[in-house]
């Protein structure tokens, strides 16, 4: 087990350098699908964060027991179990949010970020490091969703977390489907521009 990352670096890489959504472009479906408002974005981000941390922990604990050949199916079953836990918990305690996010909660199973981290990180490193990795990646995902959700809510309905900023109507297109693609496109373009300036 090589361990070259400090805990701090391990946590921060998910948020900035290897941000799953904005840099690696993984997990695009929930990113676009649930970010019509900032509060939906936070809800989805935290649900994914929970699954990421728990599945990373579980997989790094059982990694030596699982034969290499059935690795991927076993990971998927572990992930699906935690997704079902989140699904049942949210249905019981936050039914309104659950109804809003709808289909995208069970679809965390096929979110490439979760399986990607299981394969690339949790199956190689210790349990502690895997939890930190899951936490960092989950936070990076949540922050990216929050950014996208905030931009779309502010431009689309002139409000933030449901608070009205102005009485006039926003640009409806940003709440609808096309706005999601266009906003994410511009956020990535701006990040590319910033990266070019730095180097």
């Amino acid at each position, binding site marked *: 087990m090589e361990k070259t990352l400090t805990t701090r670096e391990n946590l921060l890489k998910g948020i900035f350098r290897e941000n799953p959504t904005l840099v690696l472009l993984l997990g695009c479906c929930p990113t676009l699908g649930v970010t019509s408002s900032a509060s939906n974005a936070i809800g989805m981000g935290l649900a994914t964060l929970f699954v990421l941390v728990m599945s990373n922990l579980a997989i790094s604990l059982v990694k030596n027991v699982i034969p290499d050949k059935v690795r991927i199916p076993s990971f998927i079953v572990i992930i699906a179990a935690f997704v079902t836990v989140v699904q049942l918990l949210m249905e019981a305690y936050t039914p309104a949010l659950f109804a809003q996010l709808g289909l995208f909660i069970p679809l965390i199973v096929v979110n490439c970020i979760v399986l990607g981290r299981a394969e690339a990180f949790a199956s190689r490193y210790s349990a502690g490091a895997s939890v930190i990795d899951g936490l960092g990646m989950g936070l990076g995902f949540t922050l990216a969703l929050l950014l996208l959700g905030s931009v779309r809510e502010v431009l689309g309905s002139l409000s933030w977390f449901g608070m009205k900023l102005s009485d006039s109507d926003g640009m409806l297109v940003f709440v609808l489907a096309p706005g*999601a693609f266009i906003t994410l496109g511009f956020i990535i*373009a701006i990040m590319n521009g910033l990266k070019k300036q730095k180097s």
Partner: protein
Amino acid sequence: MEYVILLISTVLINNIVLAKFLGICPFLGVSKSSSTALGMGVAVIFVMTISTVFTWLVYTYLLLPLDLSYLQTVTYILVIAFLVQVVEIVMKKVSPELYQALGVYLPLITTNCTILGVAILVVQNDFNLLKSVVFAIGNSVGFTLAIVIFSSIREQMDMAEGMPAWMKGTPAALITAGILAMAFMGFAGLV
């Protein structure tokens, strides 16, 4: 008539990629040339129709009577992964040509969220078997339509000159997808 309306609404009005945001990863990833996009699309039509039938049967005749519907997500993903493997093996034996054309896309389909998404939507909407099949065909044809149009636009865009460097690649593709989604919104009053 009901089925025709369902078909039109899933292909054009509530397009699975451009209105419901499912299957964005293959939509962005496998759309660099229109021939691979078409291959991916056909593979999705094939797998989605079969997997919807099987997941519907499993749900109705296994999970519901045993009161295990909370196992839905786990069961579905296993059924889909299993089916993709079977389709791959059968296709290799029965039609090597088809396998040559679609083979590379098949493993990718397991994590394509359109397949699981449609299987869950069918249950949420209480569709009967025939309606589920029509729904699956409509959605997968919608996926194919969107990805083929999108890839043809991207092919043209690659030849364009004068695009600023920071816009090239993903950002330009996403904004194109946004404009395409806007165009599809025009179908809204169709049915």
